[in-house]
């Protein structure tokens, strides 16, 4: 999906509530091609309203979410499952991204 979004002039950015070292290791392990940002205290997730308090005993994490952001920085839509087991489908990703491209 990433090449498809890039070809359409879009960008993908990931956020992980981990240390830069953990993020680097994770990127190397999974071969992620897009920028993966380290958000060690989930502070940015908090700013987005996506903090998941005490997700693991003693550790706050981010609520898994995908935001589709327009060129002007506003949010066109989001994918926020109510369960960790549910992941986004390519169709949902495509539709969400299309919403961020077409709207003003």
């Amino acid at each position: 999906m990433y090449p498809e979004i890039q070809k359409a002039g879009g960008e993908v950015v990931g956020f992980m509530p981990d240390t830069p070292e953990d993020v680097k290791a994770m990127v190397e392990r999974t071969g992620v091609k897009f920028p993966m940002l380290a958000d060690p205290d989930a502070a940015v997730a908090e700013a987005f309203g996506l903090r998941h308090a005490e997700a693991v005993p003693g550790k706050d994490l981010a609520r898994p979410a995908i935001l589709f952001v327009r060129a002007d920085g506003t949010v066109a839509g989001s994918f926020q499952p109510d369960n960790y087991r549910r992941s986004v489908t390519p169709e949902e990703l495509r539709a969400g991204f299309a919403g961020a491209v077409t709207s003003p």
Partner: protein
Amino acid sequence: MGIAVIVALLGTVLVAVGGLLFLPQAPQLPVLGAGDWPKLIVIYLGAGWSLLGAVQFLRHGQGRPGKAVLGLLMLLSLAGAGGVSWWVLSFSYQLPAPAQFAAEKPIPAFELRDQDGNTVSDASLRGKPVVLIFGRGVW
């Protein structure tokens, strides 16, 4: 002999106590809090003791009624521990309510470093549509 029975009984009691401690939050358990781990440990410890005691008694003990009762207790303990495990596992995946985003408001300001040490901020992403993916990370 007596020890096996005591261990088995104590195990069952532990499972029951652990289970009762969970009861107040039974309808829903969004995520396991730090205070929940001791309860789980008590339950599993109890199940283990119950199993141990019952097996010892079944192997060396005398009397059919006693064996039947201890076997039943063991099954109850294991079922209790299994039930709690299932319950915890099925509910700990539940997530908090989704965040709302005002249609006209830009995303909050941020500035973070990516895996290569490059700085990425809300400003650097302006000018093109972006997909932001928030993960729970490794833990």
